[in-house]
């Protein structure tokens, strides 16, 4: 049976339920959120319909600027770290035996699906004084005694890299599997060392994939909301944490909604910018 355009009205039947669900429970909530971002907040955590820019005007403050700047820098640092580890790792993985690959993919998927709460709990235990890794260091004589490594920026950064690394590898994996192995073979035949071949052949061939992955991981890291809360100090809070905090604990929905709309715009703008940069580099 060939694909054909819908002819009768009944042909659209199967589309009714999925389209209805997506419109009612995704498009309308999204629109509601945008609407609420212009609403006015009332005493006691309620809000009323209005059209004010007040919630957006609150962005122009030193505090908000700091949070936004920190969120972006943190997400960039995590993305850079993940790609730096992920690209060579995935390259080597895609060159291993199929069973080894499958084993790693199952393990990485399992860790990726693990709740952020659990990852946060696991790292806060690993970095704690009583049950942490410093006990091992102290035992080996590398440290005078066990000490707590949280809350700190390093803890947030490490746990977020841990959370995003499986994601990075899984995004990179299909592209690296498809990479033509004769490319590196040619480089090797011409006398390049494997490491040299990796940097002069594999990395340039994957430039666009790497840029795309950087963006994907960046957005993924922007979405992290529990790890900065569980492992960092208040100055390590990201925009995601602030949105949750305003919505749930400060009961300021209009401000939370405004920040969420802003986060969407920032994400989309960065994607656009990076796609543009990737294209230009390709053309050059």
């Amino acid at each position, binding site marked *: 049976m060939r694909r054909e355009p819908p002819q009768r009205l009944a042909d659209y039947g199967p589309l009714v339920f999925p389209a209805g669900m997506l419109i009612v429970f995704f498009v309308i909530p999204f629109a509601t959120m945008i609407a609420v971002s212009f609403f006015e907040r009332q005493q006691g955590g309620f809000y009323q319909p209005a059209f004010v820019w007040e919630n957006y005007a609150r962005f122009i403050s030193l505090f908000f600027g700091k949070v936004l700047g920190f969120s972006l820098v943190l997400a960039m640092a995590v993305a850079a770290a993940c790609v730096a580890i992920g690209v060579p790792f995935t390259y080597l993985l895609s060159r291993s035996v199929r069973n080894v690959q499958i084993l790693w993919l199952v393990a990485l998927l399992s860790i990726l699906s693990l709740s952020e709460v659990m990852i946060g709990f696991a790292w806060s235990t690993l970095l704690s004084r009583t049950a942490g890794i410093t006990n091992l260091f102290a035992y080996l004589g590398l440290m005078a005694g066990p000490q707590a490594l949280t809350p700190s920026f390093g803890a947030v950064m490490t746990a977020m890299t841990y959370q995003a690394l499986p994601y990075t590898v899984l995004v990179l994996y299909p592209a690296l599997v498809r990479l033509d192995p004769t490319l590196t073979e040619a480089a090797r035949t011409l006398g390049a060392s494997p490491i040299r071949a990796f940097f002069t052949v594999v990395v340039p061939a994957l430039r666009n994939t790497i840029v795309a992955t950087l963006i994907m991981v960046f957005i993924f890291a922007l979405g992290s909301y529990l790890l900065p809360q569980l492992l960092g100090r208040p100055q390590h809070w990201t925009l995601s944490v602030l*949105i949750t905090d305003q919505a749930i604990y400060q009961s300021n929905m209009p401000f939370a909604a405004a920040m969420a709309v802003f986060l969407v715009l920032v994400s989309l703008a960065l994607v656009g910018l990076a796609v543009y940069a990737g294209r230009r580099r390709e053309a050059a």
Partner: protein
Amino acid sequence: MTTILSRLFFFAVALFMALPLIVMVGVSINEKQTLAFPPQGFSLSWYGEIFTDDGWRNALFASLTLAALSAALALLVALPLAWFLWRRVAPWANIFQLLGVAPFTLPPVITALGLLTFWATTGFYGQPWTAVVSHAIFFVTLPLVTLSLGFSAIDRSLVEAAATMGAGDRVIFRTVVLPLILPYLVSGYAFAFVLSLNEYIVAYMTVGFTMETLPIKIFNALRYGYTPTMASVTVLFLAIAALVFGLIARFGDLPKLLGAMADER
């Protein structure tokens, strides 16, 4: 030399990925109620606690119910959509494919907040079923992607043969299409199930004050003091995920599925 280097690199990554999990396993078998590592004594009672303690058992039950129902609903949304896109030439219908993938691509807090404002505005905020709908929409991407791959893998001449012999859309779907896409149906459900089981922010923002799923329960417990049960739940969830993905890898083509998902983003 290079092989040694790459082995070392693999080992380092494996160690990094495994360390927190090793500590979790260690903590979960402590004999007393302390988070000691290496563990002091050996006891599996913290695993028993998940099923004997009312709070933990209810949370586990809530999580499993939510995951089972929301994954089923996600499948009900994804299947007709994927079928329509495969059967019909209607480029504008791709917008719904895009809508299905969007919640999964944006930072989760955005979908969560959108649903929170929506449920609050419509007056259903806090009802348990709102979490089912919310998760179904949030995770519809997964069955949508696996099913699109499943449909694209169908040999059209098989369908053509059935049509020539006079079978209508319904009969063809039941006798030819459904058996062929069944593995993709199952893996789409499994992906959505496991991720729903572990999801925190959407569940928290929609039903956080009326219902306790396991991730919510762990987060709440973090504030009142740590117990080894939190570690045993983590190990249990990791085992469930590993089992499900292991089965998908055993009976399906995991690398191919992942390839389809990466293309979608």
